[in-house]
């Protein structure tokens, strides 16, 4: 009896592992930056190029950093959600305009809506490298002490907002 059951058991174990493998997304590489201080930056603003925004300006509040570009198609998918979230006033969203052209970016915001408290410009993608950006859009949740608590790779979805991002933000906001 075991003679027949052994291969069957072996096959089932193998099948379970393969099934688990199917549900994993190889494009989602866990970021080593989680629970580490957000990389510092000082970048020009998109709307007012003379003004500089520093990452330290946001110390003391919970905020989101959304990496976007006008050439990024998936950014269009998540954009209405971001506009909605910004209107709700739950959390300020800052935009990192990644490797983009200023005029096109401004037009893009005019057309699809501007959810960003401030958009900053990363023309050569240097700050992007610091943040480990490899697939736009990417969104970071940063806490009051300036520590990255969550990274969403790819578009923000209703599901990810409700299950992960919003509860996390609520928790972080209640912290001192």
């Amino acid at each position, binding site marked *: 009896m075991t003679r027949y059951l052994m291969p069957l058991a072996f096959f089932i174990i193998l099948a379970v592992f393969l099934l688990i493998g199917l549900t994993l997304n190889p494009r989602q590489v866990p*970021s080593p930056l989680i629970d580490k201080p957000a990389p510092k930056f000082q970048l020009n603003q998109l709307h007012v190029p003379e003004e500089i925004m520093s990452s330290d300006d946001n110390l003391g509040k919970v905020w989101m950093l959304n990496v976007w570009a006008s050439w990024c198609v998936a950014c269009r998918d998540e954009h209405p959600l971001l506009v909605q979230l910004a209107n709700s006033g739950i959390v300020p969203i800052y935009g990192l305009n990644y*490797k983009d052209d200023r005029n096109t970016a401004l037009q893009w915001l005019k057309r699809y809506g501007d959810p960003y408290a401030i958009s900053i410009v990363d023309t050569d993608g240097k700050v992007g490298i610091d943040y480990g950006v490899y697939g736009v859009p990417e969104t970071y949740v940063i806490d009051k002490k300036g520590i990255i608590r969550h990274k969403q790779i790819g578009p923000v979805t209703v599901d990810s907002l409700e299950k992960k991002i919003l509860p996390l933000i609520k928790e972080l906001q209640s912290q001192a």
Partner: protein
Amino acid sequence: MMHQFSAVVKVTIFVFVLFLIFPLSTWSKEALPVAEDPEVEKRMLALTVDLRCLVCQNESIADSRAEFSNDIRREIREQIKADKTDKEIVQFLVDRYGDFVLYNPPMKPTTILLWFGPVILFVIGVSSLIVFLRRRRLQIEDVTLSQEQLKEAEALLNENKKGKNV
């Protein structure tokens, strides 16, 4: 035959003329400028062969033409010029993108299964093969044949021989 041959020649000439009219080089993009310093380029290449492009995951950063890899190559060139050691540069990338950028993963608690998994599987396979063979050998018993059975066997063998001859 002659007819066929001339057709081949005609097609060849046609293709040749096509290439003369539309040289391929006009379609291909101009080569990207290589860094001025060949030494820097050499070190950069040696480093990037072992780094994974996160956008096109089965390519190394040295091979990939993705925008991401262009940026990383540029970053590495700049760091080489800034006199950073290879170790520092790799650490810089691992800090930002994680161990996944390395094609050669470091040995640490989370990667032990990755490093020794194949050896463990091999040991399991070999030992179960040995157990299986031993058990089978035990099952084989020597059976002594009686005179009658021997005769019977001989008769069968002879019959077989005759059959083959016919």
